[in-house]
């Protein structure tokens, strides 16, 4: 039982990261109208930025700032590419999906050749932090607490923005009906840029929390994460932000518990089989898709 609880707690930390990732992914889907498969790659590159700054200066504040700036910069940099693709007549959202898969592959190649000579990076123990609570085999680390608390704060702040501010109303208006939003004089382009910016900010926080939680990163981390983010979004219902919260956490827990009882990468298989079953039973996702 203790072992099970320990795995669930680990799973909740990992799940918080999935929740944040799928929230950023869904925001891009709803407002910028793109399937941004490369979003987790931007997070991984931002983790490299964290690592590089920490190694060079050991300055935590600077590392946090640089990570967030790099993440925002990468997301904004991708905007003209996606805008170019979506402006071609006859293309639909799938074209952005294919393009972002391509972008993701290019980024993996770049990372595996030029960042730390392709070797995985490790974060120092200072950054990862030790244990703050121990009961038998239940061990709560500082980074887990950061992931839970950080996850909650970021999600609450994001939903506040979405439901209580003008920017959030603009996001939701475009998400509901882009055509009507345009007709009413809502600045589609400006609002779309804003969604890249917010997704970038979110990505910066994710990079920080993830680097503490797993203490390592490699050029191949992003793709495995991207598959899970895509799966979470589909299982919850594409673009369903609230559903993503639940399914993201659930995936973290299922994976973590599975890791505890079966060997290594079988946990992925179990998680994906469960999601496959859900999709077969509810093709529009557990909570209903917010986009067609």
């Amino acid at each position, binding site marked *: 039982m203790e072992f099970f609880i320990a795995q669930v707690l680990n799973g909740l930390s990992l799940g918080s990261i999935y929740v944040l990732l799928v929230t950023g992914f869904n925001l891009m889907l709803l407002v910028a109208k793109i399937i941004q498969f490369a979003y987790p790659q931007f997070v991984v590159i931002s983790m490299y930025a964290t690592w590089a700054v920490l190694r060079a200066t050991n300055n935590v504040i600077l590392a946090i700032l640089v990570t967030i700036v790099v993440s925002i910069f990468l997301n904004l940099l991708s905007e003209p590419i996606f805008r170019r693709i979506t402006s071609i007549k006859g293309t639909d959202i799938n074209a952005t999906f294919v393009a972002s898969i391509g972008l993701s592959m290019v980024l993996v190649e770049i990372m595996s050749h030029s960042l730390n000579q392709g070797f995985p990076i490790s974060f120092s123990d200072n950054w990862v932090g030790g244990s703050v609570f121990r009961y038998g085999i239940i061990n709560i680390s500082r980074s887990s607490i950061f992931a839970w608390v950080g996850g909650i704060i970021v999600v609450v702040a994001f939903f506040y923005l979405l439901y209580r501010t003008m920017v959030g109303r603009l996001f939701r208006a475009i998400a509901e009906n882009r055509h009507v939003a345009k007709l009413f*004089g809502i600045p589609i382009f*400006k609002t779309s840029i804003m969604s890249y910016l917010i997704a970038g900010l979110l990505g910066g926080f994710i990079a920080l929390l993830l680097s503490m939680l797993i203490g390592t990163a490699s050029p191949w981390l992003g793709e495995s994460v991207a598959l899970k983010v895509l799966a979470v979004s589909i299982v919850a219902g594409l673009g369903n932000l609230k559903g993503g919260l639940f399914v993201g956490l659930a995936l973290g827990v299922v994976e973590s518990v599975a890791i505890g009882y079966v060997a290594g990468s079988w946990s992925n298989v179990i998680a994906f089989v469960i999601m496959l079953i859900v999709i077969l039973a509810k093709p529009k996702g557990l909570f209903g898709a917010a986009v067609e």
Partner: protein
Amino acid sequence: MNNNGTTFLKMNNVNVFYDSIQALKNISLEVAKSEFVVLIGANGAGKSTLLKSILNIQAPKGSINFKGKELTKLHTDEIVANGISIIPEGHLIFNSMSVLENLQLGTYHGKKKEQSIENIFGYFPILRERKEQTAGTLSGGEQQMLSIGRGLLSDPELILVDEPSLGLAPKIVNDIFDILVKLNNVGYTILLSEQNAKKSLEIADRAYVLETGNIVMEGQADDLLNDEEIKDAYLGGSI
């Protein structure tokens, strides 16, 4: 026609194409400040397209001038910011958002945001009662009121009203038309597109008749109301 000497809205030789189909052909039209102008014509004559071309929705070719500005060079949001708003066909609103949120979105280009929403509640008290309600749950008439209220909040001078009577009960249609007259009386310029020719000619100053993308007739609303051709084609024969 121009009360103050400067042009208000002037469309000159405007053409609009949907792919290879021409929806508007050489449209030239003027609306003076404070005027109430109606576009009449059958379904598919191009009335909606004409209104949307003013907002640069479907890339119009030709010239559309509003208070000295060339609208064909502006984006829709800039045109709205310049004082034109549309109350679209089918009382389009954001169904998943509350009544209040729809109105708040309407104020995006407006200035006195809080005060203006209070004004709208003054026009439509029912919207105040239902302000926390999801807009999609309103009745058709209430949605049309919300749509009009929203359209007023960007501080427009010219309001484009697209088929406001579509799908509404006669009693509610009368209410909506009364509101349009009231808005015109307090100074809003109105360009209305409407299939209900008789009713709209009764309240408008001037009218244009559209047929398959062409303006085939224009004149004072009273004259058109008594025109034999118009009577036959749009007013259900001689009365």
